[in-house]
């Protein structure tokens, strides 16, 4: 049993530091991964530098461009600190004999650490006396440590899908590494990654720059790369693209169709991005602008342009990886590609409409939704039934816009565009194309927009369907997917969620809350389950599955309340514990709790409720003590009587408020109970000796708790510390 503990350091007075610089040169890294990978590299290097005590806490900066990941730290100690360690060895009894002479054990221990036995000393530990030796552990040179750390750090960067290229046992990385620059204080570190020796030479732009450029520091690197047509810093690329796009648009009296995601993408697709302006045949403007923009953005990564009146202009902006397009060759090439794309889109737009949208319905029978859940044709049957069910419910509850016929028709048409040529070619236009065809074919406007919008919301910050019918079909579609997938064992686990169920769940919650729809989660889930059983695939959904879908949706709601509405954890927990089947109602209750908790009486009352809950839990099973009702004749103290009477009065009032969802007023009333509750706890000993008195008091508290826990479970509220 040897332990090591650093005691004090030595000879560390004057320490030198230097700049560490690293560039990992790769074949083109997928644009969407560069930024994340740089962040990971930063975290990993910070971790190792701290672990090795190589920095004074100065953080690593890291960033990337298509062919390189870059990291630098301005302050790395050239040498680790020397450390004086005390090393504990064998027990004293084994190390010295009766005459206090060192034994062979002691000699062996001393020899191992290269000292004479006279340097050994005795330390006392909780386990007894042991011999020990002091040793100076010399700090190692940073260059030496970095040569080990850097290859490990690079190998640790996580990627979605990796490859090998030097052989099956070689390094796995996102793309082959072709050069490495690793400098400490301007001098190249001796290290190797995947067979590539690090050096001091980087590489410029593939076509415009030199292929070997010696660099001595971070600043030298940035400057020299810029001269060789690489803007290594993403911010610089961003700024250049942004400026050039605006300038070209303004020159034509147009404005850029803003697209932050596309801008970010082109920043990571080009090492020296430049914008060029191209044209297309204005006759293509007859196509819906959604189609034109999608083709330009998703397929060609072009920015669309708008006129002053908001209409699309027959121009586009492309970002190219060059300094300029002197001869206009690049522009002509991009224009030709776009022409072919638009010609394709126009071809399908016209071909698809040779028959009506509904005529595509039979073809959905051959498009699989999920192997165990059948085809889209079958899914459409279920969505129709569920949409009708929702519309009927809502109409019956006085929502005048709920039209069963619209909901049914929209659900029937919703998936038809999946088998059109246009959506097969441009899959991201699903829903939109169906909506546009429906409109062109004279379906009611409500139905057209419903088809158009029914995939919405595509994210937490994305818009929900614009009309009630769209909301209906969207919820029905997502709920059918959720219940179906859960039933066949496809509930998301960890980071794996191939069917996007979390997003679907968030979508359901977001639509319900935004439209304030009266939806019982449990009843809706049951309705979806009935559809899965009544129609193909005739799947039996167990109550346990239904419950897990409900819990899953409540979890999404918890997330929305927390992240979007900014409610506090405990407010959300308190309310959801009191019931979460109606999310709109839950949101109203949370809002009321948040408002009331600021008032003087509320948090102390919440503390009292927590106390009540604890007392009742300690008292054991209710069966043992609870009376059917409080028995006033058993009251001994005035405080008991007063609490009982006040509770009775407040409960009656609160009931009235709750009926009209006046949760704020109800909670205000409840908060007024505080003096009576406080007095009760001051004066009354709940666990009285006499059994029926004790049981009566417990019954009083139990009634109080259940009566006032229907809005929120106050015992979940975490009182602010004073």
């Amino acid at each position: 049993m040897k332990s090591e503990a650093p005691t004090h350091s030595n000879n560390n007075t004057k320490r030198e530091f230097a700049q560490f610089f690293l560039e990992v040169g790769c074949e083109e890294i997928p644009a969407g991964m560069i930024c994340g990978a740089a962040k990971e590299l930063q975290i990993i290097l910070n971790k190792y530098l701290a672990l090795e005590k190589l920095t004074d806490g100065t953080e690593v900066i890291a960033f990337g461009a298509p062919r390189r990941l870059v990291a630098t730290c301005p302050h790395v100690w050239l040498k680790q600190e020397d450390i004086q360690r005390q090393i504990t060895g064998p027990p004293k009894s084994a190390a010295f004999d009766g005459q206090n002479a060192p034994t062979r054990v002691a000699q062996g221990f001393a020899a191992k650490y290269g000292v004479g036995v006279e340097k050994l000393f005795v330390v006392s530990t909780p386990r007894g006396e042991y011999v020990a030796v002091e040793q100076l552990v010399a700090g190692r040179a940073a260059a030496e440590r970095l040569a080990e750390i850097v290859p490990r750090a690079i190998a640790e960067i996580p990627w979605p899908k990796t490859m090998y290229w030097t052989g099956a046992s070689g390094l796995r990385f996102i793309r082959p590494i072709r050069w490495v620059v690793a400098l400490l204080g301007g001098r190249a570190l001796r290290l190797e990654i995947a067979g590539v020796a690090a050096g001091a030479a980087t590489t410029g732009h593939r076509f415009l720059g030199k292929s070997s450029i010696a660099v001595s520091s971070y600043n030298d690197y940035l400057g020299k790369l810029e001269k060789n047509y690489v803007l290594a810093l993403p911010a610089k690329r961003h700024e250049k693209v942004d400026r050039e796009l605006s300038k070209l648009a303004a020159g034509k009296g147009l404005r850029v169709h803003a697209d932050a995601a596309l801008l970010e993408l082109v920043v990571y697709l080009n090492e020296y991005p430049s914008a060029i302006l191209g044209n297309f045949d204005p006759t293509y403007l007859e196509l819906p602008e959604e189609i034109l923009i999608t083709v330009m953005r998703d397929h060609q990564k072009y920015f669309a342009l708008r006129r002053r009146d908001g209409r699309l202009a027959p121009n586009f902006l492309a970002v190219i990886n060059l300094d300029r397009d002197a001869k206009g060759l690049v522009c002509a090439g991009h224009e030709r590609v776009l022409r072919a794309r638009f010609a394709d889109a126009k071809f399908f737009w016209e071909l698809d409409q040779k028959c009506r949208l509904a005529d595509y319905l039979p073809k959905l029978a051959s498009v699989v939704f999920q192997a165990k859940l059948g085809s889209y044709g079958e899914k459409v049957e279920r969505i129709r039934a569920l949409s009708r069910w929702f519309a009927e419910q809502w109409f019956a509850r006085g929502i005048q816009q709920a039209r069963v016929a619209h909901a049914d028709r929209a659900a029937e048409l919703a998936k038809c565009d999946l088998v059109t040529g246009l959506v097969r070619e441009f899959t991201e236009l699903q829903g939109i194309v169906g909506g546009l065809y429906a409109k062109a074919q004279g379906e009611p406007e409500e139905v057209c927009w419903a088809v158009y919008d029914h995939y919405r919301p595509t994210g937490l910050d994305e818009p929900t369907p614009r009309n009630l019918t769209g909301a209906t079909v969207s919820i029905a579609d997502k709920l059918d997917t959720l219940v179906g997938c859960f039933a066949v064992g496809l509930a998301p686990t960890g980071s794996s969620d191939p069917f996007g169920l979390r997003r679907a769940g968030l979508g359901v919650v977001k639509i319900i809350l935004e439209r304030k729809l009266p939806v019982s989660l449990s009843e809706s889930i049951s309705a979806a389950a009935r559809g899965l059983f009544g129609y193909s695939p005739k799947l039996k959904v167990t109550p346990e599955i239904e419950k897990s879908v409900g819990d899953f949706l409540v979890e999404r709601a918890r997330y929305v309340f927390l992240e979007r509405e900014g409610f506090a954890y405990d407010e959300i927990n308190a309310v959801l514990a009191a019931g979460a089947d109606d999310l709109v109602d839950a949101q109203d209750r949370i809002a009321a709790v948040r408002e009331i908790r600021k008032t003087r009486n509320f948090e102390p009352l919440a503390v009292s409720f927590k106390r009540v809950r604890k007392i009742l839990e300690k008292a054991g099973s209710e069966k043992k003590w609870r009376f059917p009702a409080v028995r006033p004749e058993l009251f001994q103290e005035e405080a008991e009587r007063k609490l009982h009477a006040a509770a009775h009065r407040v409960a009656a009032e609160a009931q009235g408020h709750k009926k009209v969802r006046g949760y704020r007023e109800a909670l205000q009333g409840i908060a007024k109970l505080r003096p009576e509750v406080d007095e009760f706890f001051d004066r009354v000993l709940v666990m009285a000796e006499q059994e029926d008195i004790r049981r009566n008091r417990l019954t009083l508290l139990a009634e109080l708790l259940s009566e006032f826990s229907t809005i929120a479970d106050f015992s979940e509220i975490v009182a602010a510390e004073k």
Partner: protein
Amino acid sequence: MKSQVKHEEKKSQKLLEPSFQDLILELEEFWADRDCVLQQPYDIEVGAGTMHPETFLRVLGPEAYRVAYVQPSRRPADGRYGENPNRLYKHLQLQVILKPPPADIQNLYLQSIRAIGIKLSEHDIRFEEDNWESPTLGAWGIGWQVLLDGLEITQFTYFQQCGGIDLDPVSVELTYGLDRIAAYLQSVDNVFDLRWSCHRRYGEVRLAEEQQFSAYSFDYANPEITRKLFDLHEREANALLEAFGQASDEVKRRFPVLAAYDQCLKCSHLFNVLDSRGVISVTERATLIGRVRQIACRIANAYLAQRSLASAPVSKAVRGEA
């Protein structure tokens, strides 16, 4: 002397605007100069150059190899009766396999683009993420599509697995889309307007083929017979593989594994015909792909087993480059 003049004439014309066949000749010459075996198209219908045994089988095992060939590739579902300017039932790919890939493979590829008359510094050439996968071959790789001024001209793939087997060393596969590149070089919007040779247009050479094979695979192919053919070729392939499994080493050495692979290719093409005919249900689709993949994977294993019995390897094992 006369031929010299003719050659010069051809050269100058080529610089102006290479014909479709000039493009093929340039690329083949380029890769032949870089130690590639110039192979010929495979004589069985395939959906991609990857299915040629010179790729599918050669990438397996340890021996170094370099090969280039044009492969007409049939994609029945992409047929448009010769009426669409960009879509073809059969398009021509130039396929290059470099095993193992040299470290400057990207530059090498770019030199080939320069060789066909494209000045690199005047064009927007980029490598955009595109990982390739062939479920029927049990093959996948990591790579890019290469874009020339926004046009996809090449699929560039580091093969990682083929026939379900991890590759060691890996191979790089370059697949040039010849029709597209030629259309670009000749500034033509419609593939059928391409100049194939000095005097012939692409349409003159190929239009009838496009029309007839589109009609066959969309309208005429008899689903019942096609299915039967699929079953028969599958049976033949499986019977061969079965026999291989039971054969002695002596017999295995000369066993017709290559013939079994031909049966597998037949199945793959027949599946594509059934698919374009629109007679495959969703579940059946997955099943049929699985059946072809199973044969492909068994063949890959049989091929490796056979190679390990060979008295002398085809060429020296891998040089230490990558």
